[in-house]
């Protein structure tokens, strides 16, 4: 029997891997993949905690919505990355530093 904490550990691992990818990668697409990993870690948590709601399956439903939303955000993010590339001819987030003071 797989216990809840095993799920949570996998989820936390996924989250950390995603976080690491976000912080270290030099490619916006990879960063996006990191985001997806973190999102999936959150969804995994939702599904894992879903066993406490057997009647309505609220957790699973929430996960479905989240997956859809994730797909939508990914589309938007990809569009942004495309525009960024058009403007800067690069998608390395280190080189896009117009946010600085």
């Amino acid at each position, binding site marked *: 029997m797989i216990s809840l904490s095993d799920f949570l550990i996998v989820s936390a691992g996924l989250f950390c891997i995603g*976080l690491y990818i*976000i*912080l*270290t990668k030099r490619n916006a697409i990879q*960063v996006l993949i990191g985001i997806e990993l973190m999102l999936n870690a959150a969804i995994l948590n939702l599904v894992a905690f879903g066993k406490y709601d057997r009647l309505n399956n609220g957790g699973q439903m929430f996960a479905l919505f989240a997956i859809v939303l994730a797909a939508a955000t990914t589309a938007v993010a990809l569009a942004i990355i495309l525009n960024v590339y058009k403007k800067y001819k690069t998608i390395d*987030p*280190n080189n*896009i*530093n*117009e*946010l*600085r*003071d």
Partner: protein
Amino acid sequence: MHCVSTNILITLENFLQAIDTLTIRFALAAVLLPLLAFVINFCLPKKSNKVAGWISTLAILASAVLSVFVFSKVWNQHPVHQQQLWFTIGSTKLYAGVLLNNLSVLMLLLVSLIALPVHIYSTAYMKSDENIKRYFTWLSFFCFSMLALVVVDSLVLFYIFWELVGFSSYLLIGFWYTRPKAIMANKKAFIMNRIGDIGLLTAIAILFVVYRTFDIDQLFGANALVRSTDFQLPGGWQYVAFGGIFLAVAAKSAQFPLHTWLPDAMEGPTSVSALIHAATMVAAGVFLLGQFYPMFTGQELTILAIIGLFTAFMAATIALTQNDLKRILAYSTISQLGFMVMAMGIGAYSSSLFHLATHAFFKCLLFLVAGIVIHEVQHIKDEYKLDIDPQNVLYMGGLRKKMPLTFIACLIGAIALIGLPLTSGYLSKDGILIQAFEWSEGKSWLFKLVPIGAMLTSWLTAFYVTRLVVKVFFGEFKLAQINPHIKLHINDGGWQYKVSLVFLAICCLFPLFSLNPVLYEHAWLLTGFPKITGLDRVNIYHTIIPVGLNILSLFVIYWAYAVYVMEKALPLPEAGFLFRFSYHEWYIDKFYNTFIIKPVLALSKSARWFDRNIIDGFIHLLQRTGIAFAKVAEWTDRYIVDGILHSIAYTVLGIGNFARSFQGGKVQYYLFSMLAIILAIFLFKTLF
């Protein structure tokens, strides 16, 4: 009747007063005209040399004419005295004015009459000098000071003009200021005269403190304050005042021990020597004695007589061996001035002033002659490029054939200086000698030395004057003997020379002073002064002295002639002590150099050393300490005070930069920071 006579009297009084005012005005004009010439000359452009000469000469000519008028109005009539308030200090009122009495009008006439030929002479004598304008400017200034000196009535003014006379003399001695000797000479003259000035100032101050007035007429006039018994000068102060006046006289009239400036003053142009150092400025000292005469006591007069005699004798012995033409004349001037002071001392007041007047004429004449001779020798020197001193009599000789008029003029002047009959010098000098014998009558034998010394001096005078004339005018021209190719084309010079010489030569003869050529008692000049003694032919002296003196003088002249023309043995061997003593002017200058000038210089050097090393050293020490302190303060300021501020600033900057580094604009850093902060908060929460 009474009314009419009163009216007439008043009218007469007004008339007399009007004449007096006119006289005063004329005297003032005579004094101020040279000043005007001075001002005009001073303002003239630099190149107007000829004009300057004639302006000064015209001014002095006008002064001379006015002086003759003033003289004729005042001489042996009532003295004229007018003054007005000058200024007031507290309750003391100071008056300034003009006092014309017999003494002052005599001096006024004498100065302007002597200055006139000197001016005319100078126009020719100085004509090749490029600074002739400056020369006449100062000459006019000198005449103004001297003329003003004799007519002022206040001791303050008297002192001012006394100083101005000394100052203009200083300027004229140093006229050729590029010559170091001239500069030395005028410095010497000025310093010596300053010594006298201090004396005069002291005397004036003492007189003012006691009598509360500067008025010469009140002090020394007919009712002289200084003679009144109510105001006796306190014992000590009388001597101080006398000492001061004596110093003043000794400095101006070149009496021992302050006489050494006069021979050196011969560095000035010869015409200046003639005017200032023979006839007028040096007479100021005797004039001062004449003015202050009433205040001297018998003892003081004796001192004057002894000093005067000593000066006369010393200068005469020095003149025996000098070779510089002008120096011989300078010493003869000192000697004659000694005679005048001696005459004042023995009470021969009027004879002293008489000698002053006659001496002025013949000494001026002799100097002008010397000027012409030197001028011609200078020409020869320049023409043949000889290396000689144009004033040295040893190079001259035989000039009488080339310059007959100059020779005759010189002869007249020389005879007058020796005091042979028919000249003015005879009248005045023999008068002094006779009175000297009368004075010593009835006194101890020591006092007899004074007239005997005076007689000896006049024989010495005869000797050196003959030597001078013989060396210059007789024999053969020495330069021509050394360099046979020298051709003499010298002559008496232009009309300016001749006019001056003839005028002065006539004034040296007896008719100007007395119609009787042998009896001095009849000279009109002697009647003008109150102290007439020895004018009655009461004793044997009046006959025996002139006769004996002049016969011996003739022998002395013949002796000198024999020595120098026939070239028999010298009276004194040149190696002998007496000769050297005389030649080195009694070693007085050397004495002053060793015992006064050197210590003074040493003193000033040590003072300078003290100033440089001790006072300056102390100041430098202070300065260095200050600098060291400042350096420490600077270091503190730079490294400690500024250091604190800078370190604060650096800290702030570092913190800022550290904070800024988080704002790199890199998205991943922001994320990292967020993560780090959240982790930190969690850690914090977990631990505490």
